[in-house]
């Protein structure tokens, strides 16, 4: 896709954003309501009703097979999410961080990446992990407490989940600087990095610094902000006066708001942004306008801070249903296809349950392992003393 001038050269004198989508001042002050309309700048290619629409700057030529693949991805990762949520309720996980509602934002952006691109996630990025070829079973240990992520971040080009809000944005900026220093930027074969964070993170200093660093070093970095409207209990209006995508202008790079519940638009915009970055025109901010349909985590109770009618309204914008409607309407998929996807989801869920309930606790030595790359004799002495103490109990464990 070509690079529309208006996106690559943000105009400082452009009119401020439409404010029609803002909730009332009373609602904001009461913390009762998040913005629910994306506004005039929202990039959308598939409406919630499953209508294919055009956008003057972004389009996508999608085959039936590709779209079936995206549908399948979204259904499967939703099943992973629901299974893991249930496993927490059954006491098999200590906590789970649901992605429900954000399937299109994650599958669309994740599938835009190439294997040579790098991704830096926050902790809700189960869909991105899926697109990087990480078995969902590898996510469970983090939330069961047996490990802190077991995939190889270098081989998978998927950084460990980062829990401190915003830290990974700077790490991603540094990595993208390295891609540039390595001469891997400048043509179709260039590399790029994606960084994932939420609306709450946009208030963190590290995110601002990440914007500054990536901008002044022309880093090939796509900032992908999933604005799911709620940072635990705080609506996006607690983080910003301005629609988040418009912040990019202040740093000197393009910012685009895409319908994060529209997998086609998300894929199209992200592909374009990555392409810009690999050609040396980064960084770029994408705000994926979406909604967190479940709690912040399984420990959270959203009924304390948001109204159920908001949830009902967003249910009508479901990211999966609209694709299903479109696939049927186009006669790109039949009932056999949908049944096979359901069967795959059932199988995946079963694998997940089986895996989770059989995960062993790590051995005590794990406390001390790999604190340092080159060891630490004092720590080794502490370990040996503790293991000796433990082995003094009957059976070697207490």
């Amino acid at each position, binding site marked *: 896709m070509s690079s529309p001038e208006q996106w690559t050269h943000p105009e400082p004198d452009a009119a401020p954003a439409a404010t029609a989508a803002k909730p009332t001042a009373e609602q904001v002050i009461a913390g009762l309501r998040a913005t629910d309309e994306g506004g005039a700048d929202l990039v959308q290619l598939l409406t919630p009703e499953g209508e294919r629409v055009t956008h003057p700057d972004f389009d996508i030529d999608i085959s039936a097979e590709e779209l079936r693949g995206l549908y399948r991805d979204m259904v499967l990762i939703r099943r992973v999410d629901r299974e893991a949520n249930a496993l927490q309720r059954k006491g098999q996980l200590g906590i789970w961080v649901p992605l429900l509602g954000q399937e299109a934002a994650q599958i669309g952006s994740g599938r835009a990446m190439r294997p040579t691109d790098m991704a*830096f996630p926050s902790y809700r990025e189960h869909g991105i992990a899926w697109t990087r070829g990480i078995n969902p079973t590898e996510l469970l240990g983090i939330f069961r407490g047996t*490990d*802190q*992520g*077991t995939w*190889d*971040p*270098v081989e998978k080009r998927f*950084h*460990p989940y*980062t829990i*401190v809000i915003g*830290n990974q*944005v*700077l*790490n*991603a*900026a*540094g*990595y*993208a*600087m*390295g*891609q540039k*220093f*390595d001469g891997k930027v400048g043509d179709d074969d260039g590399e790029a990095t994606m960084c994932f964070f939420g609306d709450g993170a946009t208030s963190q*200093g*590290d995110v601002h*610094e*990440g914007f*500054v*660093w990536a901008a*002044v070093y022309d880093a090939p970095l796509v900032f992908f902000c999933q604005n799911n409207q709620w940072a635990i209990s705080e609506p996006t209006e607690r983080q910003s006066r301005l629609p988040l995508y418009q912040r990019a202008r202040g740093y000197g790079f393009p910012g685009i708001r895409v319908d994060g519940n529209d997998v086609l638009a998300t894929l199209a915009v992200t592909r374009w942004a990555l392409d810009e970055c690999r050609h040396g025109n980064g960084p770029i901010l994408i705000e994926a306008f979406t909604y967190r349909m479940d709690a912040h985590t399984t420990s959270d109770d959203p009924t304390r801070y948001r109204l159920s009618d908001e949830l009902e309204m967003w249910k009508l914008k479901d990211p999966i249903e609209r694709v299903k409607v479109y696939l049927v309407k186009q006669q790109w998929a039949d009932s056999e296809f949908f049944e096979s996807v359901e069967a795959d989801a059932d199988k995946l869920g079963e694998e997940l349950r089986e895996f989770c309930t059989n995960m062993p606790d790590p051995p005590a030595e794990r406390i001390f*392992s*790999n*604190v*340092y*790359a*080159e060891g*630490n*004799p*004092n*720590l080794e002495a502490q370990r040996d003393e503790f293991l000796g103490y433990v082995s003094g109990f009957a059976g070697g464990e207490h």
Partner: protein
Amino acid sequence: MAAPTMDRSTAAAPASPVQTLTISKALNMGLRAAMEANPKVIMMGEDIGKLGGVFRITDGLQKDFGEQRVLDTPLAESGIIGTAVGLAIRGYRPVCEIQFDGFIFPGFDQIVSQVAKLHYRTQGKIKLPIVIRVPFGGGIGAVEHHSESPESYFAHTAGLKVVSCSNPADAYWMIQQAIDSDDPVLFFEPKRRYYEKGEVDTTAQPGKLFESRVLRPGTDATLVAYGPMVRTSLDAANAAAEDGTSLEVIDLRTLSPLDLAPVYDSVRRTGRLVVVSEAPSESSIASEIAAKVQQECFYSLQAPVLRVTGFDTPYPPSKLEEEFLPDLDRVLHAVDRSLAW
């Protein structure tokens, strides 16, 4: 460590391998040697390029190695550390300069949450060979936030290694060894001693990085210090010798991991220990040494371990720093108390 290559054609090529250098020049030469030995070594910091750093430690490096290896970064410490993490994952070996000790705290989150923990989190799949250079300590008549000794915060954090040099030869070798380390290293430089001179043999086989060293043997009591207080302790030992008291002086060099074997050996002989440090004493390196020595040398001790440190206050206005900082008299006073116990 593997000795860095000695091809230093663009450096101040010495006629003799033994030169008299200041600590600042030795650091500069050490950094240059590390950059020549490994093209992945890069420098990051505020004003370190064109200006050569406010203390000129990186003087001339950007001119010789280019702007892509010596980065004048935007002015934000979390950004320096946080992007160094990403660059290290990409295969670089970043050396970050924090302009002054008191400015490290905006970068504290990245240091403690990411730099210290990524190796553990990934069980060794990510290594972060990052060096964070910190000019530290007082005695230069500066305004607030320019004279602090924050090393204990980092020694308290698992996953980091912490060292401090006290003389030009160590400055030259230790900085190269820190850069060679696959662990992240906080490198504390005694800024008030930057211009002290000493002999540096650039062909000598250096000792290990994470090792303490007896600088002066003695029999009556042991002084342990690091960084700027090593000079103070050596001066105290000289003064004490004139009064017939023999003090052993140990330069800690490594603050994490602590290498206390030479201290235990010494205390078992002298029976008395005074720990000298500019940092406030509560929950400090000095406290840790006191705890470990009483545990390991309980029956050898003739007196309690004493600490001569900065006070448990914020760093005072500089007109009061002579009172705040341990000096020769306060060290000798502690030695007297120990001997009289």
